[in-house]
Every structure is written in structure tokens, then in C-alpha cells.
């Protein structure tokens, strides 16, 4: 298996006035292409920080991050924006859909950054909504959808531009057990049937069971490494 994400000696330090907080220290991590990785750990251990670095939302204070053969730790924010649009799909805990847009318009957003025609965009949006099982809710506004449905729309949005990598920060953190299981099953299918590489942060050990690998973090470092099953 090829390595999709390679992290070497990455540190993240926040400075606020004279205070400095070392959130991540000398972190090494490889994520294989086609992996479904669950990142676990106590609150404040640095999971979101690491995920943001992998997804190119933030830059490390030190170290090297290579995704799909490209070093992203040294890109400018404009270059990073373009890189994210092509390579990363994001799924957030609170879905982060735009409330004024219908489900399909939300899903279409990443495609506005591509050169696809209107007709092609429409087709891809329909396909993505079909994958998450929401073809019949395309014209609904987020406020007219349940939490689980909103998260499906968000997953469709993350998928629609066919990114290399899906990063999900507590995607089931705001959902009940049953709905969470449905969402996790969906992610698992995307990983197994569509070959999507997924990095998912979660607090929920049951959620981590859907992944192929599980990593634990504590105080800015990885503590265990190994297979969950």
C-alpha cells in the first residue's frame, strides 16, 4: 500500500502574548492510501489541530507534511486554498451547511471552484446526493432536514469534487447512536466501495470500530499505534 499522508517531525505551537502552548510535538505519522483512520484521545490532546494540519487548514510550526506526493507545509494560504479545493473533503461536527442554500446548492459549492459546466455540476451533485441516499431531499433547506440528513448533505459536499482525502472532525458528535451508526456505515462504504481515504477524529470508541485503524493521542503525541481489529 502506498503512503498518502506522511508527517515528519511536525510541531504546532500557539503563541498568545508571552505565553506559548506546544500543542503538537515532534509528531510522525503515515497514513496509507485507502485507509480509514480513527483518531482518538482526550479533549485538548490535539486531535483537531492535527486534522487541520493534514487537511491544509493550518500550517505547522515545524516539520514536514506531504500529501499525495506534495509538500503542503510550505504553501501560501492562497496555494493551500486551491490545494484543499482539489484534494480534501471536510466533514464537521456541526455540519456547517449554509442555511440559506438548499441541499443541492450546498453540495454544489466545491464545484464552483472547478471548471465544470453547469450541467456537469448538476449531474455530479445529483450523483453525490444519491451516494448519501438523499436524492429526494435535494431542494430542502438544512433547517428542513434532520441532523443525520444534514450530515449526509455535508458528506455529499465533501465527496462531490472527488477529493483524495476525507477529513472528518467528530462527524457523529452531535448525533444519536442510531443515526451515528448510519453515518459511520456510510463512511465505511465510501472507504470500502469508493476507495476513499478517511481520517476521522472521534471521542466514541464504537465509532472508531468502523475504521480500519485507530490511533490515540495524548498531550500532543500519538500514544498507541496498531490495528483496531
Amino acid at each position, binding site marked *: 500500500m502506498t503512503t498518502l499522508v506522511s508527517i515528519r517531525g511536525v510541531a504546532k505551537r500557539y503563541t498568545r502574548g508571552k505565553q506559548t502552548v506546544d500543542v503538537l510535538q515532534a509528531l510522525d505519522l503515515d497514513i496509507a492510501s485507502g485507509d480509514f483512520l480513527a483518531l482518538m484521545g482526550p479533549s485538548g490532546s490535539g486531535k*483537531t*489541530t492535527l486534522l*487541520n494540519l493534514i*487537511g491544509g*487548514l*493550518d500550517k505547522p510550526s515545524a516539520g514536514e507534511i506531504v500529501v499525495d506526493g506534495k509538500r503542503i507545509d510550505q504553501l501560501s*494560504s*492562497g496555494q493551500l*486554498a*486551491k490545494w*484543499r*479545493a*482539489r484534494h480534501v473533503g*471536510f466533514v*464537521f*461536527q*456541526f455540519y*456547517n451547511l*449554509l*442555511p*440559506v*442554500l438548499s441541499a443541492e446548492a450546498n453540495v454544489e*459549492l*466545491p464545484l*464552483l*471552484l472547478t*471548471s465544470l459546466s453547469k450541467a456537469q455540476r448538476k449531474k455530479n451533485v445529483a450523483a453525490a446526493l444519491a451516494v448519501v441516499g438523499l436524492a429526494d431531499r435535494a431542494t430542502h433547506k438544512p433547517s428542513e432536514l434532520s441532523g443525520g440528513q444534514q450530515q449526509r448533505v455535508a458528506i455529499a*459536499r465533501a465527496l462531490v469534487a472527488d477529493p483524495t482525502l476525507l477529513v472528518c472532525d467528530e462527524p457523529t458528535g452531535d448525533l444519536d447512536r442510531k443515526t451515528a451508526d448510519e453515518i459511520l456505515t456510510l463512511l465505511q462504504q465510501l472507504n470500502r466501495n469508493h476507495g476513499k481515504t478517511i481520517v476521522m477524529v472521534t471521542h466514541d470508541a464504537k465509532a472508531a470500530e468502523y475504521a480500519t485503524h485507530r490511533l490515540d493521542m495524548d498531550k500532543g503525541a500519538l500514544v498507541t499505534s496498531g490495528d483496531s481489529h
Partner: protein
Amino acid sequence: MKFLAQMFKLISINLKSVPARWGATLVIVVGLAGVVGVVTALQSMSAGMVATLRATGSADRAIVLRGGSNSELSSFFTRDQAIVIEQAPGVAKGEDGKPLASGELSLIAERPLRRSNTDSNVSLRGIGPAGFTIRPELQIVEGRSFKPGLQELIVGLKAREQFIGLDIGSAVQIRGSLWTVVGVFASNGDAHESEVLVDIETAQSAFRRNGYSSLLVKLDDPSAFQAFKDSLTTDPRLQVDVQNEVEYFSSQSRSFTKTIGVLVSVVGVIMGLGAIFAALNTMYSAVAARTVEIATLRALGFGGGVVIAATVMEAMVLALIGGLIGAVGAYAFFNGYTVSTLGAGFTQVAFSFRVTPTLLINGLVLSLFVGFLGGFFPALRAARMQIAVALRAA
């Protein structure tokens, strides 16, 4: 192209979220409506005054005043001096072979204004037959003209509108003598319409003025003016100021338009600054309310430039809506609205506000400018937010 498409999408998203924040948005719209309304109204007043005074006078007529007098009221000639002036070169001759020159007497009478019922000055002009010949625009529209020798007068349309008791048949007490209104005249809506006219000789004897305040002459043509002027100013028997009639009346409006100009600038700047701060406030709160939305879009790969452009455009669209309301309001309420003000020599000159297309466009440009400034700084803040930090605001 992609940039524009993304920007329009963001603007439409932003504008769709306006109804959810009506209160804050109204601040921009109402603020700009107020600024543009007030500034346009003030400017339309100035434009109306200028138009009225510009409409007064003709380039082939010259007005002669005693040297150093800036208005007819402080000017005086004897009959002999008037004869010298009439004979100057360039003065046109009538059918009877006599020079087309009108010696006129200008006085002030007090009459109560309709709008306030307080006394104000109406300009009274003694005028002879030549005065009517020289001014073809002067037309009796009701009743008849005065008869020489009788204490009769005719009133301008605007004078009748502005003052109490100037209707046909009314008796008017002026400087101790009683005059009867026998007619109403029009004069192309110019400044003379705010006057009252009487026969010159009757006026000279009634008011014991054996001479004239001014002399209006018809020139052979506008180009004859310089020769006419030179001959009078070099004549040692005379001490006169000679002005083209058009120039005379526009100089009368100059101080007024200057005052209005200053007023417009001061009010415009103060209200404009207020509107900029209102717009800033609205847009800062809009950006704050959308922190997570903006961060999400940027996470998806939307660039900072698009976010700035969309935020600025949103502010400009809202400001333009306000500006349109203000401009339309100023037009609806003020265009054609007639007021009077103290004109030359402290007499009332009536004129109408003129909300011209130029003023409307100026108002809209002003609103776009305010919208741009009001949107720009909040837009910068939106674009500079760190995505990872902003996403935590969810």
C-alpha cells in the same frame, strides 16, 4: 471568470441571509436613504435657484447701474444721465426710431407672506412702455396692464403665490399711497415673476423719486455689448457699472449658491461619515454573524479575494438600495417644490427645487462610495480570519 461566478454566488448567499438580520441591515439602508435624500434636496434647492436666476435676462440686453452699486436698490441716476446712456452706441432703436432703453425704478414694499403671515419684502418695479417692448417674455396672463397716471399695479405669478392680498381687485397700501391690483403677469418663470410692476412716471411722482435706479437697454446684438460698455465707462459725465443682463442675474445667485454649496458639503460630510460608520457597524456584525460560514467556504477552497469582493459588493448593494430610496424620496417630495428666499437686495425671489438627473446620479454614486468604504474594512477582517480558529466558533 471563475472569480466572478464565485463572487456572485457569495453575494447571493449573503443577500439571502439579509432577511435573517433585518434590523442590522436596515441601518445601512435607512442611513443611506437619509444622507442621499438630504444632500439631494439641498442640491436641488441650489439648482432651482440657479435655474431661476439663469432664466432671467437675455444676452442682448444690458443693465446699467450707478458705479459701485451691487443691486438696483442702491443705484440711482438722474433723467439727464439716463438720456446720455440711451444715446450710447450699440443701443437698438425701436420702430419709432427711439432708443430701446427702459429707465426703471426699483423699490421695496412690505407685504405679509402667505406661508408665515409675517411681513417680508416684495420688489416693486416702476417700468415704462419700453420696458415691455424690451422684455417680450413679460406677458399679462390675467386682467390687464396698469394705466399710466393711475395708481394701479400688476403682480408677477410667483409674487401673487407668495404674498397675501395681491389678487386682482385688491387695494394695496405702499409707502403711504393706495394702489389697486389690475393684472397678473408671467415672465418665463424668471426672477421678475416675484415682482410687482407699476407705471414708472406714476411711481416717480408717488414716491418722489425724480430719476431711475437702473437702465435696461436692448443691444443691436450681443456682440455690441463691449462697445456699449466701453463708451459708458469712459464717459467722464457718468460713473456707471455696465453688465450683461444674464451675467447680472447669475451674479445675484452666486453668494446664495456658494452658501448652499458650503451647507451641502458640511451636511454631506457629516451625514456621510455617520453613514460610513453605520455601514461599518452593519457589515462588521454581518461578518461576525457569518464567521463560521465564511470559514467553511474558505475551508472548501474559496479564496480571500472572493470573500472580500462579495462582502464589499453586499455593502454596496445595500447602500445603493438606500441611496435609491433617498433619491426617489427627494424627487417625490422636493422636485418642483416652490420656496422663496431673499434674493438681490433683500427681496423675496421664489424658485422651485429641481431634482435633476445629475443630482440623482450623484446621490447614487455617493451611496456606492459609502457602501464601498463601509464594506471594505469588515471584508478585510473576514478574509484575514484564520480558518482553523474561525471554525472553532461553531
